[in-house]
């Protein structure tokens, strides 16, 4: 039975990719629902990215919207100004990776202040980063400044979103379950102790921030080529807050949790639209229900729905069948 379970994961993934590629052509699912599914996918990547830093490493970053912005603008600049238009659908993954890479460089930069600061102070550092990115973007008329940047073709498709989500989860999972990952968890538990037992905390922080930023950058690129218009206003603290909610909703320290949190959050917010309309409540109450649900959730499950637990197919083989993953923190 175990064997067949293991075999089925790659099969499922291929099947998923085929579905993602074919579905838009069939017309069974409306473009609106496709859009929502794309948003879910993008949010999944963002949640996984933030979970690496906040959930697994126990730091507190509120600046991830900045990484997303960097990725979005980089990818857009490439497809609009650099790549020839006809070739851009084929070169799209390149643009995404480039966006991720530039965001990763930014993540690298942010890792250094994190050596000296912890917890709440890091929140400020990341907030500073976010504000600076937003400020810079607003003051660069070449990139449109506050007017925003336009001209991207609709290169994001369900297929790309699916592939990117799978890639992100794969990358994150391998990071978390590697030797590196043990270092990440040990920092969350007790940074000083971790250093004392020989974990190279600095290196671990650098890698985690970089990978996290990389993923957020990819999500940014996907986002830009879905909406075909980006402006600094889209990447504010509010966006970072959205990401925080998704991560904590789904469960910190759990990749499956991030996937779940992103899905639930996106769908509930979209689903509340017609739901409220049919009951006759004004749309403004939608944004009241969301935080309310979150607070209620925090009472019952303070670590999120899947906090510190993991979906079985995401755990490496050696850790399934009874072996419990990492302990719970203090």
């Amino acid at each position, binding site marked *: 039975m175990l064997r067949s379970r293991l075999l089925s994961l790659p099969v499922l993934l291929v099947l998923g990719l085929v579905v993602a590629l074919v579905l838009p052509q069939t017309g069974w699912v409306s*473009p609106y629902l496709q859009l929502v599914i794309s948003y879910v996918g993008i949010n999944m990547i963002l949640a996984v990215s933030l979970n690496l830093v906040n959930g697994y490493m126990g730091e507190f970053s509120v600046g991830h919207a900045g990484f997303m912005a960097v990725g979005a603008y980089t990818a857009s600049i490439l497809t609009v100004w650099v790549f020839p238009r006809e070739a851009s659908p084929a070169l799209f993954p390149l643009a995404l990776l480039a966006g991720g890479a530039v965001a990763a460089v930014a993540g690298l930069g942010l890792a250094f202040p994190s050596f000296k600061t912890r917890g709440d102070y890091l929140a400020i550092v990341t907030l500073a980063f976010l504000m600076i990115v937003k400020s810079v973007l*607003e003051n660069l008329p070449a990139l449109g*400044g506050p007017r925003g940047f336009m001209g991207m073709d609709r290169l994001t498709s369900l297929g790309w979103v699916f592939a990117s989500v799978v890639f992100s989860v794969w990358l994150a999972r391998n990071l978390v379950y590697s030797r590196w990952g043990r270092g990440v968890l040990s920092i969350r538990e007790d940074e000083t102790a971790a250093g004392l037992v020989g974990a190279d905390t600095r290196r671990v922080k650098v890698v985690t921030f970089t990978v996290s930023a990389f993923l957020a950058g990819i999500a940014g690129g996907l986002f830009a080529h879905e*909406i*075909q218009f980006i402006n*600094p206003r*889209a990447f504010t603290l509010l966006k970072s807050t959205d990401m925080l909610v998704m991560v904590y909703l789904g469960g910190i320290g759990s990749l499956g949790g991030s996937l779940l949190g992103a899905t639930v959050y996106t769908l509930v917010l979209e689903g509340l639209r017609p739901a409220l309309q049919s009951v006759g409540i004004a749309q*403004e109450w939608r944004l009241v229900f969301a935080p309310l649900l979150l607070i209620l959730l925090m009472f019952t499950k303070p670590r999120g729905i*899947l906090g510190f637990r993991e979906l079985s197919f995401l755990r490496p083989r050696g850790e399934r069948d009874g072996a419990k993953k990492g302990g719970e923190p203090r």
Partner: protein
Amino acid sequence: MNRSPFLFLAGVILGSAALVSCNKGPEKIVIGVSAELTGSIPVAGQSCKNAAEFAVATVNAAGGLEVAGKKYPVEILLEDNEDKAESAAAAAQKLVSAGVLAMIGPNASRNAIPAAEVAETAKVPMISPWSTAAKLTLDARTNKPKKYVFRACFIDDFQGVVAAGFAESHLKSKKPAVLYDVASEYNKGIAEVYGKSLKKRGIELAAFESYTTGDKDFSALLTKIQQAGADSLFLPNYYSEVPLQVKQARKLGFTGPILGSDGWGSPELLTLCGGDCEGQFFTTHYAPDIATPKAKDFIQKFQGAYGKVPDDLAALTWDSFSLLFQAIQNAGKLDRQAVRDALAKISNFEGVTGTMEFNGTGDPVKSAVVIQIKDGKYTYFQTAKP
């Protein structure tokens, strides 16, 4: 593992899919409306919503819209675009998928532009009542006009020039100053055109100061403007910020005239500004007191239904609907492409906000008016033709 989250979200997916697709009833005209009901300009969104509902109610009271001899009831499908680009795109997509004949809104340019992309790709005609950014109706890459995107208002390039002309001829300003929001498309655009236009007339700006959206304290910048010896102040900003700017300027001792743009058009401004805005001018789309008989009729009825004089956004929304209804009738059938073609051919349409015609682009050719705030009310001052 806990199964309930998956069941829950499966339910949500199915639920929203069902709710979205349950719109196929008897023959009727469904028009999508995307308004900023939440976000930073909800008053504007509410105004748009009211005017939309009013326009449709008026048509339905006459038995529906008559197209090619048959009367069809008209219905609105209202979405909140949350004043966010991605939600505006999603809302537009939702309306398109729901099968609307055409879309009205969003209003703020930052939301209208992404929605316009959706409309253009889906080949659904869209009219934005209030978005004045030139980019809205242009293809981003080729700079050629979009085919399916229209608007009911003038564009900022025109408005900035009108304001500059007024500053020179009427205010006789020799050292004009500008205070604008650099983080907002609309404000920045008009401010720049104003400056360029004045320069063309040989007048240099004394001060060109900028702030960021959300600022409430402008004392530092206004002090700088005072220091530069400005004799007039141009505030191309929104009604929520202008009262503070005016009050603070006066407190710091600035006595010169203050000029504004159509962002001043909401009556909220009068409530918040009080006596400090008395006697000042601004450029905008329409003036209720010089209304044509047709317009006066609209204003009266709107006031009867909602208890207040329609602001410029309400008037523009009403005109958007009137344009659309006219186009549908001209087209003779409920077909998106036909409606679009009819819309593009409209010439000499008399709306509440003035006469307009479309000349091959989505931007109407129409005049602007200058309004003065007198006795706490908006009073017409003069017209500026294109």
